[in-house]
């Protein structure tokens, strides 16, 4: 029983490293995708890559913050969404020439996983610095999702409806 409980724990450092890896992979995935897709829809992937790069930079700054560093060894409940989150690090193959809808659907699914992960981490941490950090990250992803959904509507639900 105790062993199982311990298995469900992880450290803040490990969590932050997983999160950083999640964003680095996303940035790399989108950047690699740019030359593969038609110029007509390239702006979508360029914007996604830029957004992930901003996130990578933010996570890097966060990891260097002395206050956050002081919590690196803290134990934290491993989120139930963690497996999904880790799986999403491995980017899918969208084919040689994915269309705008496929790219956006992938981006939306990915951002949803991030929202669930950060929200659970925030819920698992007591009020304080870490709670605020995870709440902030969850909030950022929610905003990003709203923007993606608006773009999705503009693209997919426009023209002749």
């Amino acid at each position, binding site marked *: 029983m105790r062993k199982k409980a311990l298995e469900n724990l992880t450290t803040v450092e490990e969590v932050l490293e997983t999160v950083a890896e999640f964003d680095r992979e996303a940035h790399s995935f989108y950047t690699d995708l740019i030359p593969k897709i038609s110029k007509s829809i*390239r*702006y979508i992937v360029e914007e996604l890559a830029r957004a992930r790069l901003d996130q990578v930079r933010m996570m890097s700054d966060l990891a260097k913050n002395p206050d956050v560093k002081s919590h690196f060894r803290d134990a934290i409940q491993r989120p139930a969404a963690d497996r999904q989150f880790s799986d999403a690090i491995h980017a899918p193959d969208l084919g040689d020439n994915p269309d705008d*809808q496929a790219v956006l659907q992938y981006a939306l699914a990915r951002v949803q996983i991030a929202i669930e992960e950060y929200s659970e981490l925030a819920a698992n941490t007591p009020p304080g610095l870490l709670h605020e950090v995870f709440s902030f990250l969850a909030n950022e992803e929610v905003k990003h999702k709203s923007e993606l959904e*608006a773009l999705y509507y503009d693209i*997919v639900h426009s*023209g*002749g409806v």
Partner: protein
Amino acid sequence: MGFRDVLSPYTAWKHVIRTPVTIKDPIGREAADTYRGFHQNDLDKCIGCGSCEVICQNAAIDMVPVSDPVDGDSGLRPKIDYGRCCWCALCVDVCMTGSLTMSNEYTWVDSDPDAFRFIPGVDAKPWDHLEKGYQREGGRVLTGNERAGMGELAPEARADNFDEIVAGYTREQALIEADRCVECGLCVATCPAHMDIPDYIAAIREGDYDLGTQILYETNPFSEVCGRVCTHKCETACAARHEGDPIAIRWLKRHIIDNVSEDRRLEIVGIPGVASSGHRVAVIGAGPAGLTAAYDLARQGHAVTVYEAQDKSGGMMRYGIPEYRLPYDALDRDIAVIEAQGVEIRTGTRIGRDISMDTLKAENDAVVLAIGLHMGRSTRIPGAQGEGVEAAIDLLRRITAGEAVQVPKRVVVIGGGNVAMDIARSMARLQKREHGQVGVTVTALESFAHFLADEEEVTESFEEGIEILDARGPQEVVRFKSGKNKGKVKGLRTWAVTSIFDDKGRFAPQYDRADEQVHPGEMVIEAIGQAADVSILGPELTEALEWTRGRIAIAPDGRTSEPWLWAAGDAVHGPDVITAVADGHRVAHSVHEMLLAGTEAKR
């Protein structure tokens, strides 16, 4: 000079002792409650239509600019000259919005003579908020409030056929409707093609259909089409809508063209009267934008060839709009006039398959891209891939082309726009023919209060027995998992939509998952959106062109970043026939200017 003449000046002195009949000091003495005194104007209601200016018999009213014009509001407001005003109140009687009234204040002392010309509502006056005064009684008194009716097929008479629903105005109906127009011209500014609406309505009143046709063709070679399916933005700006029905501008346009034979149209429009310029222009796409551009360019003396992938010309007008709304022969009459200008239309010719973009570029002085939005979008929900799920736009095309179309007894349509209504009503007609009954369910994300389809489309769909469910979000195309129908479509699973947009107006659908329904159907048709097939450009040109968020970037005149290529119509400005017509004119003008400049430079 007689004796009386000598005494007469002194006789006036007898009045000195009489009680004066005029008021020595009228200031402060209130007039009768309904007295016609100085004007008031409610700026929130005034739309600057200028009806007051037109009706004033003394030229006491000038419309002057006070703000920037917007659709349905000229930004002008009446300025009244009280040196001319006779206080007749005709301006109040004719006011289309009821904004102009008259207070019962009638006295005003000012040493500045120019002060007696002012703009009610803009130049603050003491009587601005007086409630007493003259207001017209019984609503608008000089023009009618209700639109003249038009004959149309009853639901039971149209249920199993594609016959045109509306009959068009009779002369009597058209006259009644034309008489309601006050010729304010707010509609002209709102119409994308800036059609001269008041003048062609005046031509109807005069019974001069030749003149009407001439006016129509000055701005639009698609009057048969626009007289039936125009989105009539003009009617949303019409001054008459403020106190009743807007003028039926679209139907009046059709009435003109209904009364002029094809031969007479050609006589009125004529053929190009200019010598050949020696320039060649290729137009890709025989829809409203492409054919309008072709019409203009041909009339300017250029040799124009239109390349159309489908077997017949017309684009979305033919392959996207069902015949009960736009009969093919009406479309053909419009196209015949365009072809008579010398425009060559090569149908069944797909760019990239039958002729390359490189060839078009090499063989022409300019190329106009007007390819429309012919690719249907898919929801890509689970189960949406595979047999039994169709794109509305593709199905409409196949119905028009006379291709075999499966007609199941039950069909579910996803979408709440006009395309969704078009395919639902088309399938309902085919079902009625084949099965004797209608079995179509339309599921739309939007609630009825925010429906995208035109109100009349929704009303007529209900009349034809179609079930329309609002606020339903598609989640899965349900398929049989076993048995002889394994893999076939069983229906559509939806959740109730609680909201579509967030507080910032962005798309963020929220669902009530507890409210789940499966709508039975052997076919699901997706009518959620359309896209342009830009693959015909090929990778090199796609890479060379500048793009703006998925659309080809164009200058205001329609020119792309490639100097030989222009783009117009639905593919760059979204779906709308009259906007496409306006676009066609714009690019034709730009192409002509470029060709002209090239000719001048060579001299």
